[in-house]
C-alpha cells in the first residue's frame, strides 16, 4: 500500500478516485464511504478519464467499475498498476462470474465487490483495502 500522506491532524490520509460510468454510482460510493482518512480527489466515467485523472491527482485508492465505454475496468486496472504498483484497487462491478473476479485480481486489483451492495459491504471492502 502506498504510504498516503500525513494530514494536518497528524493522521495518515489516502487519496481516493472513483471510476464508474454511472454518475449515480459514483455519488453513491462517495456518499457511502465512511473513512476520514480517504480524501476524494476525483471521479471518472471510464478508463480513459481515469488515467487522465490519475496523472493529475496520483490517487492511492481506487474503486473501479468494469463495464464502461472507451476503456473497461480490466484494462484500466492493468495500466494503473503499471504506473503505480502500490495503488490499491477495489473492483465494484455487477459482473458476478468468478472468471472476471479472477482476471481483475490477476491484473492487479486488490478486492472485488459485487453490485448491488449495502453501505456496510462497501465499507467492509474498503477497510480490507486500506488496512
Amino acid at each position, binding site marked *: 500500500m502506498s504510504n498516503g500522506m500525513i494530514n494536518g491532524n497528524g493522521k495518515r490520509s489516502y487519496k481516493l478516485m472513483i471510476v464508474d460510468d454511472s*454518475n*449515480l454510482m459514483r455519488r453513491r460510493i462517495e456518499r457511502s464511504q465512511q473513512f476520514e482518512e480517504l480524501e476524494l480527489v476525483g471521479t471518472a466515467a471510464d478508463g480513459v478519464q481515469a488515467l487522465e485523472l490519475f496523472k493529475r491527482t496520483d490517487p492511492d485508492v481506487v474503486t473501479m467499475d468494469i*463495464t464502461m465505454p472507451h476503456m473497461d475496468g480490466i484494462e484500466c486496472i492493468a495500466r494503473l498498476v503499471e504506473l503505480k504498483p502500490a495503488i490499491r484497487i477495489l473492483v465494484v462491478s455487477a*459482473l458476478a462470474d468468478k472468471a472476471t473476479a479472477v482476471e481483475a485480481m490477476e491484473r492487479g486489483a486488490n478486492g472485488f465487490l459485487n453490485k448491488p451492495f449495502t453501505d456496510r459491504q462497501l465499507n467492509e471492502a474498503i477497510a480490507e483495502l486500506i488496512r
Partner: protein
Amino acid sequence: MLYEQELKTFVEGTTNFFEVAAQQPASIGSPYLMEGSPSVHEYTGVIKISGKREGVVYFTAPKAMLTVLLMKMQENDFSHETMRDLVGEVANTISGNARRDFGRDFVISVPSVLSGEKPEIPQKPGQRSFIIPINWRSHSAKLVVSLT
C-alpha cells in the same frame, strides 16, 4: 430460447436488486412469453447481449417508481439524466449478475437508455421475449429478456 432455470436467474437477480439496493423487496409476477416487444414505460435501460447468447435484456419503469427508488437510495437529484442513469444501472446490474450462472461468455454491453413514448427497442423482428413483471410499492415495472 430461454430455459426455466435461466429465467430463474433473472427473477432472482431482480429480487436481489430491490432487496439490496432499494432495501425493500419487490414482488415478482409470473413470467410470460410474448412475440416481439412488450409495451414499455417512460424509461428503459437496455443491455445488448452477445457471445454465447445473443439478444437484449431491458428494464423498463415509470418515472414515479424511479423517483421513489432514488429516494430510497438516498438521492435527491430526480432529474431526467438521473432517471436515465438509474434505469441503465438497474439493467446493467441484473444482466451482470446473470453471469454468475451464464458465465463469462454472456457478454453484456454498456447500457443504452431509451425514454419517451414508443422508443424502439433494438430487438430482432419475430424474437420472442420473456416478460418478468415487477411490482414494488404500488408501482409496476418489467424486466424483459429476449435471447437466442
